[in-house]
């Protein structure tokens, strides 16, 4: 952030300018990645110390997530993310407190009021579609959102995001076919980390790249290196612009690495070799982007120290805030089944009615 010498200034300006970004964008992108990682790591600490029963992680995906979500217009375009989309959700406006409230399943968790597992984020205000656990369903929601954008004469783009494992679901075929026929303003992002829980890509896909399938729908399919944040940004910007121009959907496949097990209930050393895991560490997008920014003069020691303090404070604040927040009450557990209270069926006698009285 702090450019101290003229040469560094030129270099930094040069890197940002290559992508029509400002240095402040590059810094903010890196900060978001670092924040996502720090929050994610804290969630694992909470899990391993018995304070949160479950974690599902985005570690290794942050570079692709930040680069790809960056071209979206906040609170205007939509994302239909998945359970690894921690950095994506930060980019589009969710806060560390929002994410930690979900981790602790508190009453004030804006994603689901503690009703869903952690990682199942959602925020209608920021146009984040609520994540569910059956995979790939969200691509159809994105197609419908894009259809509504078209019918309503808006210029919103809908971005669906999932892993390569999810990409095999039938809903993906149905959605891409429909979106392509109608040239809907949609982008499908596949974060390919090479594993569907324990099953390697070779047993999930008969092709090397999920993006190859795009040609079957008559749409562009792009492969990007998920450790190259700016390449991800450039690919996404092109896809988002294309969608907004009415030229239809694009499939972007970002090759990423999964640095953790599938979830806190998975031990990936059972099915991945030590050498493979070590190789994965070399594809961590954080040190790669950091080195690039330092080389370009966008980051220096002073800026990094400030950023580290800032991220650490945000994680501490979110954790303390969420841990202290109240749990939901059983009395409210039958709220929001239907919109109109009159439609509600009587509480069965074995459940407490709201207010704790007999049903």
């Amino acid at each position, binding site marked *: 952030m702090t450019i101290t010498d003229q040469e560094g200034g030129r270099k930094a300006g040069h890197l940002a300018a290559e992508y029509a970004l400002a240095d402040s964008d590059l810094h903010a992108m890196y900060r978001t990645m670092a924040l996502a990682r720090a929050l994610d790591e804290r969630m694992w600490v909470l899990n391993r110390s018995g304070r949160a029963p479950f974690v599902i992680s985005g570690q290794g995906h942050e570079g692709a997530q930040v680069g790809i979500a960056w071209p979206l217009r906040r609170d205007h375009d939509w994302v239909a993310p998945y359970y690894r989309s921690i950095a994506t959700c930060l980019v589009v406006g969710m806060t560390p407190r929002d994410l930690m409230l979900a981790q602790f399943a508190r009453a004030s968790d*804006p994603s689901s009021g503690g*009703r869903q597992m952690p990682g199942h984020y959602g925020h209608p205000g920021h146009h984040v579609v609520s994540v569910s656990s059956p995979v790939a369903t969200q691509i*159809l*929601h994105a*197609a*419908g959102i894009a259809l509504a954008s078209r019918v309503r004469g808006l210029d919103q783009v809908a971005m669906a995001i999932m892993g390569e494992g999810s990409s095999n679901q039938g809903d993906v075929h149905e959605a891409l076919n*429909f979106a392509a026929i*109608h040239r809907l303003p949609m982008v499908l992002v596949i974060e390919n980390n090479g594993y569907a829980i324990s099953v390697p890509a070779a047993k999930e896909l008969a092709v090397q790249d999920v993006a190859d399938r795009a040609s079957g729908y008559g749409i562009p399919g792009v492969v990007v290196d998920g450790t190259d944040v700016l390449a991800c940004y450039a690919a996404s910007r092109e896809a988002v612009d294309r969608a907004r121009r009415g030229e239809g959907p694009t499939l972007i496949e970002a090759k990423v690495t999964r640095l953790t097990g599938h979830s806190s209930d998975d031990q990936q050393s059972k099915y991945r070799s030590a050498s493979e895991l070590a190789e994965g560490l070399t594809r961590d997008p954080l040190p790669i982007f950091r080195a690039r920014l330092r080389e370009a003069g966008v980051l220096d020691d002073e800026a990094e120290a400030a950023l580290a303090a800032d991220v650490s404070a945000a994680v501490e604040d979110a954790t303390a805030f969420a841990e202290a927040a109240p749990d939901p009450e059983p009395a409210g557990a039958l709220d*929001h089944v239907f919109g109109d209270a009159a439609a509600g069926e009587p509480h069965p006698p074995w459940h407490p009615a709201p207010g704790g009285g007999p049903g």
Partner: protein
Amino acid sequence: MAVRTFIEAVREAMAQEMRRDASVIVLGEDVGKKGGVFLATDGLWAEFGDDRVIDTPLTESMIVGTSIGAALNGLRPIAEIQFADFIFPAFNQLVSEAARMRYRTMGASSVPMVVRAPYGGGVHGAMYHSQSIEAFFTHVPGLKTVVPSTPYDAKGLLVASIRDEDPVLFLEHKKLYRSVRGDVPGREYTVPIGRAVVRRPGSRLTVVAYGLMVHYALEAAERVADEGIDCEVIDLRTLRPLDRETLLGSVRKTGKCLVAYEDNRFGGYGAEIAAIVAEEAFDYLDGPVSRIAGPDSPAMPYNHILEDWFMLNPAKIADAIRKLAAY
């Protein structure tokens, strides 16, 4: 007031709502130029165009899933599943997504969407064009299930469903489409979701029905009336949320309850009605809560003799009434 067939009433409801509200769209297989395989959407494409009347590929999960997304972004989609039998590829979208969206977002998101599905047998539709599917979906909190039996209700309930803030599965019995006529006001009106109606008042026994079975139950009630059995016939109209008041009020009056449903019997929707009556009106009963329903074959066979064997009819319902009345 004009006399309309059931399907004309369905069509009129959609056309009027589309004129009134630009956010209402229709999507499904063959719903465009052709106007749907039953002609429920006939004329809508010509009036409202490609953007609002969308012919889809043969992809039921997409029809429902895309409707969910469109509903999240400000539209009120009416999705047509060509035959209820083909809804199962969309089961996940309906059950895991549409029904849970409001609940899992603490009311912040909702899915105002109608899924219309022609159901039911007796039309030579065989195993895959005859099914009753309500039991799969009435089990699911967060989904409303509506089954009209008259043209008046078909229009009023469909308008109410389109205006509802929650996903509604709207089941139309195929055999009613052109066999039933009735007065349907040309004006806009709604019939409230969640209200049953007494179609025939009576004192000795309550028959609970919905869809085509309402008509068969009424015929059966006439047959046994000559024998001195005075039946009350309840048309549920909405299966969920259920109008317990009308149901239990009737059974508390008559003391006997027969549930007639076309679906196969085991675990059918009528089983839930029977359980509710047994639990909540036990003190008033003077006979076993009974069910008359389809046999437990995996689906309705095609051959007309076998189809007749499967289908309920007024005679079968009348027999069940006599048996219960004699208890």
